[in-house]
């Protein structure tokens, strides 16, 4: 089945072209976060800590009948403000559902991840951090 692979490669090529990569000067995601341990999270946004160099948002993640609070690191506030996902967008979604694609810490820090993309209840896919998988 070569065709699906080619189609996938073509879509990936488009993604590389259409989504502006973070400036090359930014620090390396791979130094701190594990791109082999990325996964989806669903839960409820509870809190936002909007500071530099990275904001953190806190989500009650629901899994297997349990609820655990996770923290997610995002781009800098300046970058988020300029790409349309500013502080007010997060505040407007406190106590609401959120879906996140993120990667775990290399140190094994519990319940901590770097967010790549997320969706709030409006269904808009937002890039809030580096995408590594």
């Amino acid at each position, binding site marked *: 089945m070569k065709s699906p692979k080619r189609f996938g490669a073509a879509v990936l090529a488009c993604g590389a072209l259409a989504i502006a990569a973070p400036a090359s000067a930014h620090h390396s995601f791979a130094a701190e976060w594990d791109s082999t341990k990325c996964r989806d999270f669903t839960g409820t946004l509870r809190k936002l800590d909007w500071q530099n160099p990275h904001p953190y948002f806190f989500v009650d993640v629901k899994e297997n009948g349990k609820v655990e609070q996770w923290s997610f690191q995002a781009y*800098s506030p300046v970058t988020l403000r300029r790409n349309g996902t500013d502080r007010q967008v997060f505040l407007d979604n406190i106590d609401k559902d959120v879906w996140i694609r993120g990667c775990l810490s290399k140190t094994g820090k519990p319940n901590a991840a770097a967010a790549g993309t997320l969706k709030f209840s409006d269904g808009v896919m937002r890039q809030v951090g580096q995408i590594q998988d």
Partner: protein
Amino acid sequence: MNALHTRVAVSALIIVALCAAQGLAQGTAQGTAQGTAQGSYTIKPLPPGGPTPRLADGHPDFTGQWFPNGAGQGVSGRYGVDPAAIPQFDRKATPEEPPQFRPEALAKIKSMTATELELSKSSVNCMPRGVPAIWLQNPYTTFIVHKPGLFAQLYEVLNNWRLVHTDGRPLPKNPEPFFHGNSTTRWEGDTLVVESIGFDERTYIMPNGWYHSDELKVTERYTRPSMNYLIVEITVDDPKVLLKPWKSAPRRWTLGNGEIYEFYCTNNLELEELEKLRQQELKK
């Protein structure tokens, strides 16, 4: 056209078609988030604009908020960005040679572990980038306020600033080491040339371990060929580290809407995690 060429051509057409379709879809899907209209690329290269604005003394006026890309707005993490709007220079038209390091400098750089390299970066440790890194490895905007006698640079990142006096004062004989160095300026036609010495040795030229010595001399050449474009060309002369001076490509910055934001680094949680990783490296 042989079979291989045919396959390549067909693949290229498929990619172009998919990109166009994806661009349209993203333009629609991101309308709310990005404030963009529908279309294949919603963020495009900024055109040159009108003529070069000038100061009362006739020299070019570099005043403006400048983005380190071709778009005149932020591009990181945004959908629908024309790839042509991202780079600061065309690597084919104006290739940038890699620095030629002295053997001992290269050995020192290569001896850094991955985590040490990461910890050395201004974007990680929240130290000032310094000159010339602020013009070479800065994804954020710079606001320039220019008037006769003064060339002020307000860096968004870390709320750093630099005042360059353009009143003809010479370089100091015994400069105090500053992150932004000690500068003297001159005009060469419409080019403002800034020469600087006396740098704090904790800064890096690039985020790849390229350190500098106390003999670092930096020459910046600023031009504004039109309203929307600022061109910055950097020469790094450092005989203790480089075999010959390194010259950057002419890097283009584009005019923004004037919005520059606060960026005090008050919650740096990454140092602690990276220090843990460094300790793990040392145990290996």
